[in-house]
């Protein structure tokens, strides 16, 4: 490879920055500016905002991101193997097979521990209050 391959990407990068900057600047120039206190308040469908948006997010988001890191690494390794699929033969396939089996095992573990279940408490509450049979849980 040589760096010239990246010249078009660098030029495009500059072009997009200039385009976005220029058009937003133009919008600032052409558009009116009539701020009112109501207009500048965070939009909450007309209700006066009371709470700061600093509530915590469920830890599940974090677990999903962690799982994603693992899958990203898996994808990278699989790509590196896939470009040499023919040359590496059954040996490569077996090595990658073991690796993939462990990743599947990881997914299975996370699944079983319930980290992939969203909304379960509310569902359970719904079932209890509506006297629905427990079939959904299966």
């Amino acid at each position, binding site marked *: 490879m040589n760096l010239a391959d990246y010249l078009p990407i660098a030029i495009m990068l500059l072009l997009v920055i200039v385009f976005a900057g220029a058009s937003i600047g133009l919008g600032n120039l052409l558009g009116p500016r009539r701020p009112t206190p109501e207009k500048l308040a965070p939009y909450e469908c007309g209700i006066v905002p009371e709470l700061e948006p*600093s509530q915590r997010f469920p830890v599940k988001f974090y677990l999903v*991101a962690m799982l994603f*890191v693992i899958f990203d690494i898996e994808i990278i390794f699989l790509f590196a193997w896939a470009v040499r699929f023919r040359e590496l033969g059954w040996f490569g396939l077996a090595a990658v097979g073991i690796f993939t089996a*462990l990743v599947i095992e990881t997914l299975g573990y996370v699944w079983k521990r319930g980290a992939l279940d969203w909304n379960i408490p509310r569902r359970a509450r719904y079932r209890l209050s509506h006297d629905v049979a427990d079939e959904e849980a299966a």
Partner: protein
Amino acid sequence: MSDWFSEPANWVFLVLALVIAVSAVRVVTSTNVVHSALFLVLALGATAGLFLLLSAEFVAWVLVLVYIGAVIVLFLFGIMITRAPTGPNVEMDHRPRAPAAMAAFLMFIVTAGSGLTAFGDQEITRLGDGTSTELIGEQLLQRFVIPFEVVSFVLLAALIGGITLARRDASPAEEEATEEEVQA
């Protein structure tokens, strides 16, 4: 010296190195934790640029995909699940700056020194023909196949650790308590 400056790649290196140095300093000095994470993105992006300069395309894009695309997103989620402060946080600023700078400098000496003693002015030769991806794929699944398999164990262990820390499994008694609460 004029030779060094006549080579355009060196100019690219200089710019990238400056970006890395400045954003790395901002990572630790910024009082807003989200800004720190974003300066880390900038530093990693410029590092990917350095790998491109070294013709290590695969490594460069892996850095973007895994570190910028996944690990920093994980950091951001980590920030969001604790709290999502939009303003600066005074607690972020630590008093003992001099020892920290000292430690960073020593770290630099160690890494730069070991790099120089290991390679010096030596030319790096390619392992063979083919793109960097193909060479890495071959090395990974032939010479380094054992570490490759070990990595999958490490990943599994990391995730189990993460889940154990993040999720406390409700004991049957606790589950009953929640159900009673719901029924009530």
